[in-house]
């Protein structure tokens, strides 16, 4: 099929063996990227093994649209067993690595085993080798990329690597692409570290072919034109996701003790970053949005820092939730995480928890290597980030992530660990936007709003008419109502699974208030591959992917309905101030929302587990068989 290379590259680091296999059977069933990754993980990684076991796989994947003229076609998917939640992890990152992998001739790259010594993988078109990495082991992500590029005197090769955090098996470790793009979730950096794999370097020269090049190009150009007319495009160009911030925008404060930061938000708005530090706008591969930016700090405490970033998660995690209204500090934290290879969501959740525990005197200087974790202390926050990456002193506990650290510390500190399925969360508006919260709570990778959470709640142009036309949910733009929100999450989680499998960026789509919807992607896919597909068929594949992920979680950990609740704080402590003062998640309403969500999915309402009927309808018979064998399949009465 056109649009694919038709090959997957398999690397067994234990046996030092390199091979290829056809990728078509997987691509035909699951599109690419995340879908193919989920299927391979389910079939080849036992739910019983530890995520750091050499038998765990790192499954990197491109999609059919990756590397083509489709908007934002530079996305790389990663699927692996999740170090933090114990279930499945999927992550999706931008930059320029994914197209290069595809041009090198591979749709997917599957890494198994564990190298005897630190190595890196060199992919130069069809020539692949496993190389000694002793010269980069111990180096940070930025140094690693520079050293590799200088070694080959080649600025045109793409580098993906882990930093010290991954080497030291910190559960907060991520994998970095092009210095500032992250495959963040699930402690995947630690999986790579456990395999003694420091970096992957790729260069490719084989173009992607389309079934009907002229017609596909025309469709790509139409998509670009649609984006030019979109509200989301204008906003993202203005200041990335930070452009949304204003005093009324819900932001978490001091580990979610409040959900409103008021006027302080003005100090970290996009215009402040722009005025003080921005040097350039930047974009990932073939992306018209340019939601990223380069910064340079000339004066003050952080003078000399040059970096790419920062998005709204950085502002939430290191700004409002640590209660520091200093854009330079946010850039310093964000870039330190990028350098050390740390996932900013898990890091901020862990730091915020530690600071609150110190405030509540659960932690004292005896626990923290003498550091005083007082809100607003910038030096201590930066010191802790470094300690986590190197597992130094108190950092060794924090490196377990927020729920792992709370478990070790005990002393009722779990109450302040803001996590879903063990995964730290870095969210705004969780007490306010019902579908946003439901998407986070039911996410198959454990937390995070990039699974089923819609971005439509509270957005002005999502009127009842727009909500009905796009999602069949007139209330899609209304944040606080529970009505219709389960249906909205079911729609978005399928859409996201499809987008992640196609190899494009979610920001180009309806999700970020842009004008590309499922029909547009169906057209792009059909014209590229020559296989005609429609929205319904794409969504069915999306639902299959989600069910495989769900089943993998059920088999690995037994996650059930109880695990789909938000942390107690969001149900017991209302927002204290601001325009949404008094809002919280009502437990009875949440129960009804979950009932509705499971019913729409065809899952068992009582347990939250999958049913035989649902899996038969989706033709996932092996998934059904595995769940049945484990006694975790619910039989429906005919």
């Amino acid at each position, binding site marked *: 099929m056109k649009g694919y290379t038709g090959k997957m590259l398999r690397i067994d680091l234990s046996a030092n063996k390199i091979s290829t296999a056809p990728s078509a059977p997987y691509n035909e069933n699951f599109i690419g990227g995340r879908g193919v990754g989920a299927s391979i993980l389910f079939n080849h990684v036992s739910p019983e093994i530890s995520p750091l076991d050499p038998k765990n796989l790192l499954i990197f994947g491109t999609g059919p649209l990756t590397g083509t003229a489709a908007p934002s076609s530079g996305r790389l998917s990663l699927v692996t067993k999740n170090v933090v939640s114990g279930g499945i992890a999927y992550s999706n990152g931008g930059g320029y690595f994914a197209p290069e992998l595809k041009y090198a001739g591979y749709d997917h790259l599957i890494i198994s085993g564990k190298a005897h010594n630190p190595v890196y993988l060199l992919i130069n078109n069809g020539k692949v080798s496993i190389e000694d990495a002793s010269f980069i082991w111990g180096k940070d992500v930025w140094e690693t990329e520079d050293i590799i590029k200088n070694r080959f*005197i080649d600025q045109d090769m793409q580098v993906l690597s882990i930093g010290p955090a991954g080497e030291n098996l910190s559960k907060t470790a991520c994998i970095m692409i092009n210095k500032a793009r992250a495959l963040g979730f699930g402690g995947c950096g630690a999986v790579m570290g456990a395999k003694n794999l420091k970096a992957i370097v790729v260069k490719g020269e084989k173009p992607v072919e389309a079934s009907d090049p002229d017609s596909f190009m025309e469709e790509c150009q139409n998509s670009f034109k649609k984006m030019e007319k979109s509200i989301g495009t204008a906003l993202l160009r203005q200041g990335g996701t930070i452009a949304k911030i204003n005093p009324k925008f819900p932001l978490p404060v001091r580990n979610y003790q409040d959900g409103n930061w008021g006027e302080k938000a003005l100090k970290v708005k996009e215009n402040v970053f722009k005025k003080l530090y921005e040097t350039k706008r930047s974009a990932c591969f073939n992306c018209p949005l340019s939601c990223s930016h380069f910064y340079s700090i000339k004066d003050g405490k952080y003078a000399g820092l040059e970096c790419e970033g920062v998005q709204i998660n950085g502002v939430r995690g290191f700004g409002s939730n640590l209660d520091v209204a200093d854009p330079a500090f946010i850039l310093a934290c964000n870039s330190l995480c990028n350098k050390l290879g740390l996932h900013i969501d898990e890091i901020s959740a862990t730091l915020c928890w530690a600071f609150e525990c110190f405030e509540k005197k659960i932690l004292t200087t005896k626990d923290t290597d003498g550091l005083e974790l007082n809100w607003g202390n910038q030096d201590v926050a930066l010191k802790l980030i470094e300690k986590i990456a190197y597992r130094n002193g108190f950092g060794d506990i924090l490196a377990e992530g927020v729920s792992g650290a709370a478990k070790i510390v005990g002393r009722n500190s779990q109450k302040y660990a803001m996590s879903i399925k063990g995964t730290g969360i870095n969210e705004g508006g969780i007490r306010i936007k019902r579908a946003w919260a439901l998407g986070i709570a039911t996410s198959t990778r454990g937390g995070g709003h990039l699974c089923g959470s819609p971005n439509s709640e509270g957005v002005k142009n999502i009127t009842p008419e727009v909500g009905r036309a796009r999602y069949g949910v007139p209330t899609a733009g209304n944040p606080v109502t529970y009505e219709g929100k389960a249906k909205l999450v079911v729609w978005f989680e399928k859409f996201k699974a499809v987008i992640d499998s196609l190899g494009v960026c979610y920001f180009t789509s309806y999700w970020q208030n842009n004008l590309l919807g499922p029909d547009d992607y169906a057209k792009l896919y059909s014209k590229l591959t020559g296989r005609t597909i429609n929205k319904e068929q794409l969504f069915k594949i999306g639902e299959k992917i989600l069910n495989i992920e769900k089943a993998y979680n059920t088999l690995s950990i037994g996650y059930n309905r109880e695990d789909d609740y938000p942390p107690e704080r969001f149900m017991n402590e209302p927002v204290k101030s601001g325009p949404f003062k008094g809002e919280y998640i009502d437990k009875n309403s949440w129960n009804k929302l979950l009932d509705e969500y499971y019913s729409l999915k065809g899952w068992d309402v009582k347990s939250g587990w999958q049913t035989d009927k649902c899996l038969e309808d989706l033709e996932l018979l092996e998934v059904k068989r595995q769940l049945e064998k484990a006694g975790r399949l619910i039989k429906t009465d005919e």
Partner: protein
Amino acid sequence: MNKKDSKIKKPYERPERELLKMDISKCTGCRSCEIACSFHHHKNFGLTNSSIKIFRDNKDGKIEYFFNDTCDLCENEKIPLCVTACSPEALCMKK
């Protein structure tokens, strides 16, 4: 891959083609121009066969660009495809 093999051969010439103008302060490094160029020449999507080449420094975002002599300003097109594809309007035709 040894150093010699991997060293970029630079067939690219500066400055820009006579009629194409590039403003690197606007360029976001997205490489849409390279993709469009690949399509123009070969009806496929890649980076190696393009007449234009963009390098982005991942530390500070600085852009370097090169044209080579295969650029024909997209014969048969009203406007060269790289110009049409350039969302930040860094590439344009000289007036």
